[in-house]
């Protein structure tokens, strides 16, 4: 399967009369896009804004971030099974407005935090302070219940991203990345001496505001599933999560999954990349045991020598992570875990409550309790009241100079457990 991702570099966004890209400037016809979003009768109104890197803008509460893309030469556009009919993705050519992003915001429930600061200290911690963001803020029809509200915001963002990129279908890409891999049997023949590595990506699958989707299917409805890495890089996996700012995997991060990218970079050189298993993080212990058993069995059936497991979220999924680890190691399959840690505001507490002797290789994506001070913003896109959620909770969180204390867990993508973020682990 061969996928080409063509990058068209975006260096600014402006509103204008026509949606187009010219010399790196993305112009957006605001009215046309607003009309498209309002076709959904759950949506009463939509507000569109632009946030550029360095501007004193704070976006809150962020629900999802999506990279605008278009499938070249395809009659079917959009996210398969979600905003378009089912079609296979992961092959052919996709053009990307690289450097641009759609950011959806909205209070679906009161306690969402999810900050993207485009400036100052806050910008250091989120990868989406470096993208030129089109911010989509919908007003739902009165009385719309949260399930439908979440769906409406999710679809609005996905549709907006496809709308933006449509103009780039026939543009020449400035950079083309190629992701090509034979089937498992061919690869084993081709690279007999390289270790066979499987990637297990865990997805929050727990109910309202806590679900991922694969080809439009809610991940809580699935058994662990093997997919080609190209499918995820090309839009098969999207986010429906709202309340885990620092470590939810946004759609943008799925589209650019760092574990997949890094495994691809080493494929055929240092290792043989077998594929991706998507595993649901369920709420019942029975469900967790089933998913973990089946995940370990898939790895065994594929003949994996090693497995990298990434988590999504914090709390009950930690149990799945360690059970998967235990089962794989007991099968003699070397396992690396990627998680984030809560090691106190000073970073000195024991990071993981759960432990298993089999967890011998664990990568930390950051300390969710790390304290940061956010400078005052000039413009707030979204809900000013939501700021109180991040500043509240302990004494002296608001400083006299207007700066606020905030834990890293309130910042979008700050401790991404698939590695698409700004912090790194250094061994001392």
């Amino acid at each position, binding site marked *: 399967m061969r996928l080409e991702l063509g990058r068209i570099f975006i260096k600014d966004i402006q509103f204008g009369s026509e949606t187009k890209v010219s010399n790196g400037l993305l112009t957006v016809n605001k009215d046309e896009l607003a009309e498209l979003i309002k076709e959904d009768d759950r949506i009463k109104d939509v507000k569109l804004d632009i946030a550029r890197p360095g501007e004193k803008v704070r976006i809150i509460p962020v629900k999802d971030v999506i990279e605008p893309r278009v499938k070249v030469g395809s009659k079917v556009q959009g996210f398969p099974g979600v905003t378009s009919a089912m079609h296979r993705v992961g092959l052919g050519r996709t053009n990307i407005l690289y450097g641009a992003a759609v950011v959806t915001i909205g209070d679906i*429930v*009161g*306690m*969402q*935090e999810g900050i993207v600061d485009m400036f100052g200290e806050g910008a250091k911690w989120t990868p989406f302070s470096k993208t030129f963001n089109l911010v989509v803020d919908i007003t739902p029809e009165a009385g719309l219940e*949260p399930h439908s509200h979440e769906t409406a915001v999710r679809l609005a963002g996905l549709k907006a991203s496809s709308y933006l990129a449509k103009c780039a279908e026939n543009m020449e890409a400035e950079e083309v990345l190629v992701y090509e891999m034979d089937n498992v049997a061919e690869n084993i023949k081709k690279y007999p001496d390289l270790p066979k590595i499987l990637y297990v990506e865990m997805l*929050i699958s*727990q*109910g*309202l*505001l*806590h679900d991922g989707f694969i080809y439009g299917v809610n991940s*809580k409805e699935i058994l662990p599933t093997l997919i080609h890495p190209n499918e995820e890089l090309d839009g098969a996996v999207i986010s429906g*999560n709202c*309340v*885990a*700012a*620092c*470590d*939810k995997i946004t759609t943008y991060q799925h589209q650019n999954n760092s574990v997949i990218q890094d495994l691809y970079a080493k494929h055929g050189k240092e290792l043989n990349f077998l594929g991706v298993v998507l595993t649901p*993080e*369920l*709420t*019942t*212990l*029975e*469900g*967790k045991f089933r998913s973990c058993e089946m995940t370990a069995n898939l790895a065994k059936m594929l003949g994996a020598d090693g497995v990298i497991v990434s988590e999504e*979220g*914090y*709390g*009950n*999924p*930690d*149990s799945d992570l360690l059970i998967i680890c235990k089962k794989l190691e007991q099968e003699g399959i070397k396992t690396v875990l990627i998680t984030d840690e*809560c090691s*106190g*505001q000073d970073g000195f*507490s024991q990071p993981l*409550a*759960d432990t298993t002797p089999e967890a011998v290789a664990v990568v930390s994506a950051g300390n*969710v*309790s790390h304290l940061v001070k956010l400078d005052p913003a000039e413009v707030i896109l979204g809900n000013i009241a939501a700021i*109180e*959620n991040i500043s*509240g*909770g*302990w004494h002296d969180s608001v400083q006299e100079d207007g700066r606020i204390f905030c*834990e890293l*867990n309130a910042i979008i993508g700050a401790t991404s457990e698939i590695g698409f973020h700004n912090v790194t682990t250094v061994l001392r």
Partner: protein
Amino acid sequence: MIIFKMFKRGGGLMKYRILTNNPSVAAKYENVLYIEGTVDDVLVKTRNLIQRGESLVTHPLPASIRMMYTPYRSIVIGQASGSSDFLQLEIVEESITKYRRIIEYRNVDIKNNRDYENLDLWLLESALYEMNTNI
């Protein structure tokens, strides 16, 4: 009255009940052990029941940090299996440790308690749905 049942390992049906401090859950379901107290109280009560040999059906913790600040939590417990399950005991003990660590610096979020009450109910119902698919 809605009575949920699920298969017990080795055959037969296992009845279960919901441990909760969420008034919405208590109002909607009858097989409830209502705890007038905090999330910490619910977790400790869960641990005590698991130590007595009852079984843990749903995980004690939610799946995201923001949900850790919830003033409400509902946990499903199955009837006694006769002996304590060490993995379940480990899970519930670690959940208490983790919960206390994460709220060490932040208080329970009372301001949004109505939303938390609803979310706890919806997440519980998602778990009940997950369990019913086993029947």
